[in-house]
């Protein structure tokens, strides 16, 4: 086999870097044709478009010369979307009827069924992803999902966010520790303490940003309070614009920072059998990509989108590596896969995609 992707053998351990072979120009043609078909069919074709999009990104993500593959059934995706759309319509009707009770009832219901929806999405996504002819699968139970999302989610709300790292850790562990590649289990070992460390750094940055923006608001209101006579309302407008602009900056600085730290935390503490993962995504890399993507999207009224997502996918792939003790050739298929390659036996739960 082709081992040219292998680098830096350390002892028996080999490093495999992910790479991405897609290009914005290629993806643009796929995207635009599928988008047009989706619009012309009032959204129905969008399920087929989603399959194609994921196939594009999976097959162009290479690991040790092999690409990933996506097997999702568009009908299952369509059914999931219809369900979510139905809930959205009910929510809108509830909102329009003006009855707050009804709105809260719908939101409460969505919150209660969210563990089922999340588990369904994770199952569908995992089972329909393969690498080297072997499928992934997700074995999380509904009870675990309920504890991780409803239980820890409520705790986060009650503690006004103080329990957020605990909730995030539980949710990440649920997603990772129930994920299998063939017969091999992923395992995430990041502790709640690790999450609190990242959380504190993010919180510190947010407080700093808040303090500065409150300062800006205060300064722009000073003239109105009569401290500086003769100032026109333009001063207020400038203050507001300044604050809005500042929030944009905060959004672009703290967002990428939080995303990169959490992503690295999960992957750098995860294993798959004798494989370790190395994620080196940096906030400044993401920041540069998001800023230039935003600029491109504004200048092209949104038509830059395919290039934007391809750039992000490439960045992520190129900053992820595997340290494999003993190579990648010894994974074995999950028993279920032997029964039927398409997994039709379990089709009842596999055939509904709730991932958006």
């Amino acid at each position, binding site marked *: *086999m082709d081992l040219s992707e292998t680098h830096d053998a350390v002892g028996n351990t080999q490093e495999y870097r992910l790479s991405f*072979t*897609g*290009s914005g120009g*290629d*993806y*643009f*043609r*796929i995207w*635009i*044709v*599928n*988008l*047009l*078909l989706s*619009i012309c069919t009032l959204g129905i074709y969008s399920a087929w478009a989603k399959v*194609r999009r994921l*196939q*594009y990104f999976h*097959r*162009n*993500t*290479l690991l040790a*010369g*092999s*690409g990933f*593959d996506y097997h999702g059934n568009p009908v299952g995706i369509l059914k999931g979307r219809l369900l979510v759309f139905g809930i959205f319509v009910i929510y*809108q009707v509830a909102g*329009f*009827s*003006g*009855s707050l009770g009804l709105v809260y009832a719908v939101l409460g219901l969505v919150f209660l069924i969210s563990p089922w929806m999340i588990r369904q999405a994770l199952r569908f996504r995992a089972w329909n992803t*393969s*690498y*080297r*002819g*072997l499928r992934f699968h997700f074995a999380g139970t509904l009870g675990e999902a309920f504890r991780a999302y409803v239980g820890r989610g409520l705790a986060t709300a009650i503690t006004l966010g103080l329990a957020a790292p605990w909730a995030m850790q539980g949710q990440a562990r649920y997603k990772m520790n129930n994920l299998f590649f*063939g017969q091999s289990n992923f395992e995430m070992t990041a502790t709640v303490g690790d999450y609190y460390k990242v959380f504190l750094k993010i919180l510190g940055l947010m407080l700093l940003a808040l303090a500065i923006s409150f300062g800006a608001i205060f300064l722009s209101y000073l003239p109105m309070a009569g401290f500086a006579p003769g100032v026109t*309302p333009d001063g207020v*407008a400038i203050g507001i614009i300044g604050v809005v602009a500042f929030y*944009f900056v905060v*959004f672009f600085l703290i967002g990428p920072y939080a995303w990169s730290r959490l992503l690295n935390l999960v992957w750098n503490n995860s294993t798959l059998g004798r494989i370790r993962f190395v994620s080196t995504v940096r906030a400044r890399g993401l920041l540069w990509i998001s800023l230039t*993507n*935003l600029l491109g*999207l*504004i200048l092209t009224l*949104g*038509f830059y*989108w395919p290039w*934007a997502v391809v750039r992000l996918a490439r960045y992520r792939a190129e900053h992820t590596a595997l340290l494999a003790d003993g190579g*990648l*050739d*010894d*994974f*074995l*298929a999950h028993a279920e*896969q*032997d029964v039927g*390659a398409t997994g039709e036996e379990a089709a009842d739960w596999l055939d509904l995609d709730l991932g958006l």
Partner: protein
Amino acid sequence: MVEARYFDGRSSRPRAVLLDWQDGALMLNDGEETLRRHPLQEVDVTEQLGDGPRLLRLPGGGVCEVDDREGLASLLQAGGYRDGLVARGQRSLLLAVLAIVALIAIAAAGYQWGVPIAADLVAARVPEELVARSGEETLELLDDHWLRPSRLPGARREALRSQFAALRPPDGEAPHWRLLFRAAPQVGANAFALPGGDIVLTDELVALARDDREIMAVLAHELGHQHYRHGLRSALQGIIVGAAVTAWLGDVSTALAGLSSAVLGARYSREFEREADTYAARMLQHNNLSSEWLATALQRLEQAHAGKVDGTPSLLSTHPHTAERIEALKVHR
């Protein structure tokens, strides 16, 4: 013959094989023996997507990964395989350009005609109780935050109400309406139509008017909103535009999506204002009053609000410029 990596579906170990086409079947040979043999129609040939390896999914599990695009393409061609219509379309540059033009045309037509028509269709089917309920909720919200009970004497209120009730609407029957008086120190002179038929008139506007006919003109404008069910329709248009813009830009930036929705929605709102102005002008004439009264009222309102916050850029403005509205009213003289 084309080189490929074969995975048997049981382990992740690759085997180098040669693919060939023989007697109507795809053959996998590892150099010594034929490992698999399948009629081409049983093989799930995936599309070539980008530069990644192309996959042949074999029946009963197992997959072949091929890096040699051209070699595989000619092998498949020899076997009588043809790419699907969409797969071919995705490779065409001309089609991509045509698709951009078509998308822009669809978006423009949808904004110009599609959204208003769709909103009208839905509006006609929304139960009246639901609309009334939404109006009541809005009124409660306004009462809680912006409005105070009216301080106008009861007799004055009654006089204005009966004066307006005596006016005949221009298009047959009047829409259902109810006139409410409120004081609005923060909002100032204003009047608005709520979904379901309520028309709110502020004490400040009553005080501002030098002639009751100016008030009648403003009320006729609000009755126009009720006649065309503008409240409900603009809410529905807002939902549709918001959903479309969020679908297009939501992943990029919600702020950008919100701003675009506001700009796009404001143009609909300005059209509604013009419609209501026309309705009011016709109503005034129908009752042998001059449409000049509306122009006077608009001017007075503009002066009353001048210097307050009127720095809204015209793109975001929900109302057309007063000068433009007054100019448009001249047609009705």
